[in-house]
């Protein structure tokens, strides 16, 4: 349904060109939850914003293709693109505290989407908003319509954001770290809600996170990104049971232990390289414990270890090319 092919989104900064998204291909089939994981700064948000054509300067989509039901989004006239945003593809963000406009009621902000895309009257839109609030589990929805964002807790605000995102029954919802700012109990509730919505409304979800626990709980398919590139992609079971890429292994080792202690999310040694000074060869090589000499000389391609499971690492070169998801 959504096919991102060889997407390159670069930031043209004074210090040079940063390839925030570097030849990324992601496929999101209908009725599925696809995870995109990786450390901070690996290009997850920029990928998401590219889909909506909302990358702002100095960023620019340089090349690639983004197909929504076969329809090319890159280069689409802004007027047509606006009909897709919030309607066919909606997005929710990491910061429920600041993602809602403080000077308008939450009811009005959710209704606005339906007035815009469905031509609903104000009264109709408000009625629908109450329904949506109920669907996302906001208690006393009629009363909450008139609340301002600052009167709601973070969890409730994120539910409002989800209600807003689901208002027009989009075919795809992009969730950019929707639970990072919430505490663990609320996080579990929100994830549960999203899974339910996917099942009941048939909306696919692109789930951006840096939490492998969230991936395990929610996703059908996963893309692991590192410094702008997809390093490994696989179905959820393959990813956890047949983990191939050294980076993914590192991520999995860093899942918070069931003891409830939430330490550092990532405990892979070393730092993410600057996009302006990428190491020669494999971009993970400076931190990779399994690196061989070749890793420091040339870049690995995506190799197919099994159907639907691609790995960008020389250790799997024997498996042959063709690891691209599409």
């Amino acid at each position, binding site marked *: 349904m959504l096919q991102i092919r060889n997407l390159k989104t670069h930031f043209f900064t004074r210090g040079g060109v940063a390839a925030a998204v570097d030849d990324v291909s992601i496929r999101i089939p209908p009725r599925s939850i696809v995870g995109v994981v990786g450390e901070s700064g690996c290009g997850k948000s920029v990928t998401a914003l590219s889909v909506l054509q*909302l990358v702002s300067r100095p960023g620019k989509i340089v090349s690639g293709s983004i197909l929504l039901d076969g329809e090319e989004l890159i280069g689409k006239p802004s007027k047509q693109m*606006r009909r897709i*945003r919030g309607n066919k593809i909606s997005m929710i*963000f990491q910061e429920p505290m600041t993602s809602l*406009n403080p000077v308008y009621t939450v009811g009005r902000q959710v209704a*606005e989407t339906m007035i*815009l895309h469905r031509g609903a009257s104000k009264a109709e839109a408000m009625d629908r908003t109450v329904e949506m609030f109920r669907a996302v589990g906001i208690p006393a929805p009629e009363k909450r319509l008139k609340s301002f964002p600052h*009167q709601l807790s973070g969890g409730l605000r994120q539910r409002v954001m989800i209600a*807003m995102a689901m208002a027009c029954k989009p075919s795809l919802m992009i969730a950019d770290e929707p639970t990072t700012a919430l505490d663990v109990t609320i996080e579990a509730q929100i994830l549960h809600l999203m899974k339910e919505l996917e099942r009941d409304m048939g909306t696919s979800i692109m789930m951006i996170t840096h939490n492998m626990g969230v991936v395990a709980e929610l996703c059908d398919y996963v893309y692991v990104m590192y410094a702008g590139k997809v390093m490994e992609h696989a179905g959820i079971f393959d990813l956890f049971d047949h983990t191939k890429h050294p980076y993914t292994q590192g991520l999995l080792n860093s899942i918070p232990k069931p003891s409830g202690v939430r330490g550092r999310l990532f405990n892979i040694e070393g730092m993410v390289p600057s996009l302006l000074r990428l190491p020669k060869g494999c971009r993970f090589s400076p931190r990779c414990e399994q690196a061989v000499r070749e890793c420091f000389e040339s870049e690995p391609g995506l190799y197919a270890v099994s159907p639907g499971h691609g790995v960008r690492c020389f250790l799997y070169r024997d498996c042959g090319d063709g690891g691209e998801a599409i």
Partner: protein
Amino acid sequence: MARYILRRFLISIPVLVGVALILFLLLNVVPGDPVTLMMGEHIKPALIEAFRARMHLDDPVLVRFGRYMLGALRGDFGVSYKLQREVSGLIWQAFPHTVKLTIYSAFVSWIIGIPAGIFSAVKHNTLIDRSLMGFSLMGVSLPIFWAGLLMQYVFASRLGWLPVTGYYSIKYYIMPSVVLGWSSAGTVARLTRSNLLEIMKNDFIRTARAKGLSEPSVVACHALKNAMLPVITVMALQVAGLLGGAVMTESVFGIPGIGRIAVDAITHRDMPLLQGTILFTTAIVIAGNLAADIMYAFLDPRIRVEQANS
């Protein structure tokens, strides 16, 4: 909300009294004997003594201050030395002219400042932005007397389109309002621009875009209200400042407003008149502050709702 307003109002009373006291003390240490000032240099010392006694000028300062404040409460600010008329009467006579000038120039200031600020923000770092900002900031830096005289020369003397000075119809107010309005437009424009730019960086603007709103709608519906909140406060303060009298403009264009009275009072060392005028101006500025606070509270739900709940 009513309680919030009441509380803000009560807080402003001691401020006003404090300003009045400082003012009273300051004007009392200014050299020069009021009786001599009033009656001329060559009168008999005995007469001066008699007058001092009659006007209670030899009482302790605080006693006189108390008496003055009690009078002020009843609207009695004393009698002008020079004109021998009630200060309050003089102020009330001048105030309407100042009000007119204020309304017109505030209008000019907003008509220039707000759109200039919005356009500059939307087109920031472009030539349009720089020229608009340059134009509105020019108003701030142009000395009023100079700009005023220049306009009088061009539009009155040369072209004959407008009268030079006076206050008889709206025509007379055009030049002074433009000069005065332009001079505060720069602040409005700069503030509108910077607030709007700041607001446009917010996450909720990204949300609005992700909803599919067009860029003009994003600015007009989601950014502007947030951005204008602090600007409205500043505009209220500017209006209060203007109501306190525009000394330079009123002098250049011969408008007998509060600013002119103040200048006259200073030239003639007319202490009661000066004191009354400054106190009046202070009261207006404090009232403007109060109005700005209340307006802000009304417009910003974060404050309004808090107040309603408390």
